[in-house]
Each structure stands twice: as C-alpha cells, then as structure tokens.
C-alpha cells in the first residue's frame, strides 16, 4: 500500500515536472519563425483572393449575407459570429460604398499581415489580423475550409505569444521583449500540444472509417475533380498503393502524438508529416492549407528552442581552466 508521504512526493515530482515542461525558459525564435510563416502564407492567400473579394465576402457575393447571416439576431450567440455587416453603418458614415468599404477592410487586413511579417508593432498587428480574419471567414462560411480554421487558431495563439522577440523590427528597436522567456516556452508548448492533439484526433477519426484501411479514401481524394491535380485513375490498377498510403496516414497521425516528444523520433515524425502535407499540396492542390501546416510543424518542433544565452554559454565554454582546476 502506498503511504501518504510517498504519494505526496510523487505528486510534487509530477507537479515540478509539469511546471518545468511548461515554464522552463525557451528561445522565442521558433515563435518568430511561426510569425513570419503565418504572415507569409496568409499574404500569399490574400494575394490570390484579392480579385474576388466581393464574390467571396461581399453582401452580394456568391452566397449573399442574408443566406447565412441573420442581421436581426440580437442574441448572445450572434456575438460568436462577428460579421462584415457590422461595419455597414461605419462605411455609410464615411460615405463609402459597401464594395469600397469591403476592400478597405481587406486592405487593412493585408497591411496588418505585412506588419506581422516584418515584426513591426507586432502585438497590434496580431490583434488586427486576428479580428479581421474572424470577420472575413464568418462572412463567407460556405467557402471556408481547413486553412481558415488553422489560420484562426494560429492567430489566436499568436495574440498571447512573444512573437516579436526575434527576427523583427521590434527586436531591432529593442521593443520585442526578451529573446529567452518563460512566456515563449508556454506559447511553444500550447502550439505543440494543439498540433499533437489535432493529429491524434484526426488519425482516430480516420481510423474509424473503413475507407482509410482499404485505400478508398486516398483513391477518392486524389481522383475527385474538385481536388485532383493529375489523372490518378491508374491507382485503381494498383490498389495496394492507396491502401498503403491510407494505413500510413492513420498510423502517422496517431503516432505523431507520441513520437514528437522523444528527441530521437521527433525529427523523423515531423518530416514525415511535412512530407504528407507536401503530398496534399501536390496531388490535391490545397497549397495554402499544406503551407500553413508545414509552417506550424516546423516552428513547433524543428526550430531549436534552447535559450539563446544558454547556447552561447555552451559555445563559449572552455574546458581548459576546468582541467587545470582538476589538476
């Protein structure tokens, strides 16, 4: 039987390990890479959507506001869906047409992304980007997909992370905060755990479907006209290949959750997931989604996060005087 003292000691050790896991100081450089990566992907996406802003997000776009949004809804739940229609009166008061107002909002979004990329007024840029991303995606719910979900999640986390501490104009001006911090570790851990949980959930849900075990999911995904980039119907003649890829996807996504915490298995696991996303970009054309996922994976697990000062101390360490002391 375990006595109370042993249990208390175990609890204390577990608490200490958890505290160290979450709060040991870390370099903010991975978060800087995250900031640059997210901003670059979302800027590229904004560039590719700029000509169709009205079609996607406008009142008279492909799916008009009235179809997916009840402007008369004053309930608390409506607050969960900030919508571009909220700006209508503001546009009117400035004498802007709704179309001009929409492009004005979009240009603020793009400007904030540029600031985020450069790390200039990083916190403010983050807030503006997140808020406007919420407005834009809520105003076009029929056209959003995975990349928008991850953009929202990443930008929300970015609000709380010391993103401007490295590789930024703010850092050059001495306003980015410390490059090593406990806040950087907390931010990094949240990002890592979110990714690991997400792949686990995705892998389990895929594993519950027969299509991922008999290869039909891969067959469908790469031959549907909506996503197919090449004629992949030849896969029907080699059914073992999509089956192998289906199994690999499920095992990789579930295994990622366990593999990324071990130093030896981390890099192979992350590189395998990155390869999967490269495949998604190449064979399914989901370039924005794949790019964002690659950015999240690289910044979470592949950019060294040991505190910069600790690394410098290790590099500057000279064993000779210690040898003399020993002698």
């Amino acid at each position, binding site marked *: 039987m375990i006595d109370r003292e042993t249990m208390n000691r175990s609890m204390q050790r577990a608490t200490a390990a958890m*505290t160290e896991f979450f709060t040991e100081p870390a370099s903010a450089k991975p978060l800087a890479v995250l900031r640059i990566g997210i901003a670059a992907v979302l800027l590229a996406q904004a560039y590719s959507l700029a*000509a169709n802003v009205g*079609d*996607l997000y406008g009142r008279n776009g492909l799916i008009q506001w*009235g179809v997916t949004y009840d402007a008369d809804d004053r309930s608390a739940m409506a607050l969960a869906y900030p919508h571009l229609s909220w700006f209508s009166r503001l546009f009117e008061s400035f004498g802007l047409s709704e179309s001009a107002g929409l492009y004005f909002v979009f240009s603020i979004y793009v400007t904030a992304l540029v600031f985020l990329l450069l790390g200039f007024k990083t916190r403010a840029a983050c807030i503006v980007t997140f808020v406007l991303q919420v407005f834009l995606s809520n105003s076009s719910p029929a056209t959003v997909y995975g990349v928008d979900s991850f953009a929202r999640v990443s930008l929300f986390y970015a609000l709380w992370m010391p993103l401007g501490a490295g590789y930024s104009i703010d850092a050059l001006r001495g306003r980015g905060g410390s490059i090593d911090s406990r806040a950087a570790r907390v931010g990094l851990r949240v990002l890592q755990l979110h990714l690991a949980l997400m792949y*686990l959930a995705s892998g389990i849900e895929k594993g519950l479907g027969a299509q991922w075990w008999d290869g*039909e999911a891969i067959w469908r995904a790469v031959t549907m006209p*909506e996503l197919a980039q090449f004629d992949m119907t030849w896969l029907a003649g080699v059914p073992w290949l999509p089956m192998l890829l289906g199994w690999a996807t499920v095992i990789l996504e579930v295994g990622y959750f366990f593999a990324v915490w071990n130093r030896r298995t981390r890099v192979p696991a992350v590189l395998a997931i990155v390869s999967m996303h490269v495949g998604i970009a190449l064979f399914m054309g989901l370039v924005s989604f794949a790019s964002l996922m690659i950015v999240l994976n690289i910044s979470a697990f592949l950019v060294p996060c040991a505190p910069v000062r600790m690394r410098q101390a290790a590099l500057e360490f000279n064993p000779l005087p210690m040898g003399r002391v020993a002698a």
Partner: protein
Amino acid sequence: MPIRLKLYLTCAIGQLALVALGMAHIGVLPTTTLSGKVLRVYTGLTGADKSYGFFAPGVRHQERATFVITDASGRQWEDDLEFGDSAEANLRLGSTANVLRGVDDETAFHFMRSMADKMFQRHPSAQTIKVQIQAYGIKLPGGGQGVPAIDFPTMAEFRAGKKPQWIDLYSLTFQANDTRQAIAVWDERGMVK
C-alpha cells in the same frame, strides 16, 4: 512562480482542455445556460470548437452547381462557379455546392437563388438561369423524391468499367425581376432536392 506566469499557464492549460474536448465532440456546458453561451462564443471565436476530422471517417462524393443561361432570343449557354481569378479562389467558389447536401430544402433554395443572382450579375443579357446541382460518381440503387443515390466508384468498380460522371441531382430555374434579382420559376414538381 510569478503570479502573472501562473495565470498565463492556467489560461493555456484551460484552452488546451477546451481544444481537446472540442476535438472529442464533447460539449462542456449546454448552450441554454449563460455560462454555456459564453463558452460557446469563446470557443467559436478562438477556433477551440473544431473537430479536425479532415476527410474522416471517409471522403464523400463531390457535388457542383452548373448554370444553363437563356437570353431573350432563346440562345443558351453554360457557366459554372469556377469564375475566380486564381486556383485558391476557384477552390472556394467551386466547392460551395458541397454545402447543399448538409442543409434543409429551404436553405438550399436560398443558396441556389443567391448563386443565380451572381450569375445574373455576370450575364446581364440572361432572361432565365437554371441552377443544376450535380454529383460526380455512379448511380446506385435507391434514392428518393426523384433524386438519384450517387457515390464515387470504388477501385474495384472502376476496374470493372464503372466510370464516374456528372449526374444531375436536382435543379431550379430562376428569372430576373425588374431589379435583376433572381426569382424562382416553379415547375410542376415544385422544389426538388
């Protein structure tokens, strides 16, 4: 540990707990209560309510909308939703029809009318526009209300010669009113979905 860091850490762990519950499709509180509503708003805004079941448990067949446009002289031509200026825009616009299979008839009607409105904007000489919803696959036994059951062929079916094609599911015809807005032209079958 400084109190500020403690607070930061508590919030981070709380957020991750909500994310994990969202992924497991577990609602923490009913949205009939105030706290449940607040939590729903929070998880919706932060993306903590996502389940991340990409292509899970399986990949469904694809649907699309095509448009048969007729002008005053009876001339007909076709258009589709991939009128964007980039692959990313076309991916978003083109996949809109997939939303229709998850909504009720009334919502589907409003989606189709909205699409017709956009087509009237794009084709000013159009008199009527038929919005045709199609699915990519092969016909299966069953279906109902005049709408065929469709699925994408398996690899074995494909090898046996069953090739997928675009199959008409249901359609609605709209004509423009004086302000170039789409109004439905009801046929004898009424709204079919």
